[in-house]
C-alpha cells in the first residue's frame, strides 16, 4: 500500500509492523510525531502493547533496556538533547547486549538553540556500541527500522536509525507500506534468551575483573564487526521479500568517476541530481552514499574507492577541533590504500543550512580545481 506521509510517520508504521509491544518515549521536537502516532495507535488498540510515557529520555532508555532483557521487543525515538541525555544508558544498552531499536531524528545540539538538521547528535554517540544507519528518505527509514530488528536480534547489539530533522522527519513523500503478513514472515516473533529466570536465578550486570571486562568488550567488538556481513545479508533478504534494498553503502556512477562525492542521509538525494548536471557538463564525478556508519564499512569503502584520485566528503556535522566526522572515519579507512586519494572535507548543511544541487556542484568544481591536498575541513558557504 502506498501512502503520502512524513518520515516520522513512516518510522511509526515500521514499529507497528514489527509488532513492537513495548515503547518508552518522551517528547522532543522534531521526533514527537513518532511518539504521538504510536500513542494514538496504542490508545485505539491498533498497536498491541504498552506505551511508557516516561519523564525523560534517560528513563525511556532505562525502561527499554529492562524490558528487552525481560524478553520483549522494544522501541524508542528521540532527537538531539534527548539523545545526549540518554548517553549513559546508550553505553549500558550496548553493554547489556540488548537488541533495542531507536529512531533518532538528527537535530543540532545546543548551545545556541535550534531545531534544524545536523548529524552531530548521533555521531557523537558513535562510541557507545550502537549500530547506526543514516537514511536518505522516509521509505528508507521505514525499511531500515524493519531491517534493524532483524540485525539487532541476531547480533545482540542495539540499533539507531537516523533521519534528519525536517528534510526527512517532516517532508512528505509517497511511502510504500509493506503488508503485515510479509513483515511477519521477514521478522519472526522474538525469541530472546531468558535473562531473568525465576527457576534459575542469575545476576545481571555484575562487577567484573579487568580481564573479564576486556573480554566482554572484545566480544562486543566482534559482534559489531559481524554487522557488516549480517546487515548486507538482511538487506538482500529484504530485497527478496519487499523488492527494495539499499546496501550498507551505495555507489552511484562510480566506475568511470575520477572524483567521488561522499554523503550520508538526505543530502544524498540532492547529490544524485548534482552529479547528473556535472556529468552533462563533462565532469567525471561519481557519488558514494554511506548508509551504515557503525560499524564503519571499511572494506566495502576501500574496494569502491580504489583507484580514485579525489574524494570529496560533504559533512553535515563538525567535531569541533577535528572536522567532519564521516571524513575522519573515511580518511582512517583509506590510510593503507596502495595509492591513497586526496580526501577533501567540505562542511555544508551544518545547523540545517540549505544544500542545493547547485551547492554540491560548486563544491565538486572547487575540489576538481584543487591541486594540493587539504588537511583542514573547508567551511562551505555559497557565493
Amino acid at each position, binding site marked *: 500500500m502506498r501512502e503520502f506521509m512524513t518520515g516520522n510517520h513512516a518510522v511509526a508504521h515500521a514499529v507497528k509492523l514489527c509488532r513492537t*509491544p*513495548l515503547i*518508552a518515549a518522551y517528547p522532543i521536537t522534531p521526533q514527537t510525531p513518532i511518539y504521538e502516532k504510536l500513542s494514538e495507535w496504542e490508545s485505539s488498540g491498533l498497536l498491541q*502493547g*504498552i506505551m*511508557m*510515557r*516516561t*519523564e*525523560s529520555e*534517560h*528513563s*525511556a532508555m*532505562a*525502561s*527499554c*533496556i*529492562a*524490558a*528487552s*532483557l*525481560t*524478553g*520483549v521487543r522494544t522501541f524508542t525515538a528521540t532527537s538531539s538533547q534527548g539523545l545526549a541525555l540518554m548517553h*549513559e*544508558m546508550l553505553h*549500558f544498552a550496548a553493554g547489556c547486549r540488548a537488541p533495542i531499536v531507536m529512531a533518532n531524528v538528527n537535530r543540532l545540539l545546543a548551545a545556541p538553540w535550534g531545531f534544524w538538521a545536523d548529524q552531530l547528535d548521533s555521531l557523537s554517540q558513535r562510541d557507545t556500541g550502537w549500530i547506526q544507519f543514516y537514511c536518505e528518505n522516509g521509505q528508507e527509514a521505514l525499511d531500515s527500522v524493519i531491517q534493524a530488528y532483524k540485525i539487532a536480534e541476531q547480533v545482540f547489539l542495539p540499533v539507531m536509525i537516523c533521519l534528519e530533522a525536517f528534510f526527512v522527519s517532516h517532508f512528505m513523500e509517497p511511502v510504500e507500506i509493506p503488508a503485515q503478513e510479509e513483515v511477519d514472515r521477514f521478522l519472526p516473533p522474538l525469541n530472546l534468551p531468558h*535473562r*531473568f*529466570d*525465576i527457576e534459575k*536465578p*542469575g*545476576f*545481571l*550486570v*555484575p*562487577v*567484573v*575483573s579487568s580481564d*573479564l571486562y576486556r573480554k566482554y568488550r572484545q566480544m562486543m567488538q566482534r559482534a559489531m564487526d559481524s554487522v557488516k556481513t549480517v546487515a548486507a545479508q538482511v538487506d538482500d533478504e529484504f530485497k527478496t521479500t519487499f523488492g527494495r534494498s539499499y546496501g550498507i553503502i551505495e555507489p552511484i556512477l562510480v566506475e568511470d568517476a575520477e572524483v567521488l562525492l561522499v554523503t550520508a542521509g538526505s543530502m544524498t538525494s540532492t547529490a544524485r541530481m548534482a552529479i547528473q548536471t556535472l556529468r552533462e557538463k563533462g565532469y567525471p564525478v561519481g557519488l558514494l552514499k554511506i548508509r551504515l556508519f557503525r560499524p564503519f564499512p571499511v572494506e566495502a569503502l576501500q574496494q569502491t574507492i580504489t583507484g580514485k584520485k579525489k574524494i570529496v566528503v560533504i559533512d553535515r556535522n563538525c567535531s569541533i577541533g577535528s572536522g567532519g566526522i564521516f571524513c575522519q572515519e573515511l580518511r582512517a579507512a583509506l590510510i593503507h590504500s596502495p595509492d591513497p586519494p586526496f580526501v577533501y572535507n567540505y562542511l555544508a548543511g551544518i545547523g540545517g543550512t540549505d544544500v542545493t544541487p547547485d551547492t554540491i556542484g560548486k563544491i565538486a568544481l572547487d575540489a576538481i580545481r584543487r591541486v594540493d591536498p587539504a588537511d583542514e575541513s573547508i567551511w562551505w558557504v555559497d557565493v
Partner: protein
Amino acid sequence: MKSPEQQPNFLRPGHAACAGCGLAVGMRLVLQAMGPKTIAVIVPSCEGSIGGVYPNTAYGVPTIHSAFEIAAPTAAGIANALKIQGRHDIQALAFAGDGGTFDIGLAALSGVAKNNDDIIYVCLDNEGYMNTGIQVSSSTPSFAWTGTTPGGNPRRKKNIMEIMAAHYNPYSATATIGFPQDLQQKIIKAKRIRGTKFIHLLSPCPTGWRMPPELSADISVLAVETNVFPLYEIENGVRWTINYEPRGLPVEAYLLKQGRFKHLTSEQINQIQQDVNEEWARLNQRAGSSSSKDRTSRSTKGFKHGKK
C-alpha cells in the same frame, strides 16, 4: 502462601556488608516477604557493592545491577514486559539508597509513580552516601556530621513521603528493621496492590552513623520511639495511617548514641526536638482527618514494642 519466616533467605550469607549493617538486614526481610517470584533491581549504592564480585552473588532471586538513577524505570520496564508476557505471578522490586531516591533518582521515581507502573520500590535510607564513604545527601538529618559536612549538615532531611503522597500513588509506607513484622506486613500488603508502591526503610549504618555495630536494631527502635522516624502509611496520597503509637522519648535518646551527632549544641538538639514535635503533630492531624477508627485498629496490631 508461605509466611515470610518460612521463606528461604534470598540475601545469602557471604555478602560484603559491614558488621551491623541495617541495610542488609532490611533487604533480607524485604526479600523474605517478597518470596521467590521476584525480579529485583539494585543500583550503585551499598546494595550494589555488597552482592559480591562475579562469579559470586549473594542474591537468591533474579537480580539486575542497573545504573544509579534508574531503579524505578528499570523495575517498571521489567514489570511492563512481564505484563506483556502474561507473567502476572512475578513482581518487580526496586532497591535504591537514599542518594538514588531522594537525589539523583528522584525524577525517574516520580515519572514511574506518575504512570503508576506496577512495582514495589524500597528506599534503603541510611541517610547519606555511605557507599562512597559518608557524604551528605538530601536525606541526611539536620546538623549530622558527614565527610562533606564536617561542620554539620545545615539543611533538614527532605520529606520523601510527602513527595510520594503528592503523586497519589496507591501505597507508601515507612518501616525500619527494629520493627521487622511491621516491615514484612507492609511488603505483603504492597504485593497485593497494583501500581507504584513505595517503602521508606530506615536502615541504620554503624559505619556512617559512627556507632557500635550492635546498636543498629536498638537505634532504629529509638528512631521510632522518639518520633524522629514515625511508622505510618499513606494510601492513594490522601489516607494517612499511623501504624504505631510511640513512647515519645526525647530526641537525645536517639541522637546521643551516634557519633555523627556528638558535636551537637543544646540549641541544636532543641531545634531538632522542635522540628520533630511539629512533624509529629502534623502527621497526627493528617492521620486524624483520614480515619481515627482505622488508626486505632492498626496501632495495637502485631507489635512487640506496642504502647504500654
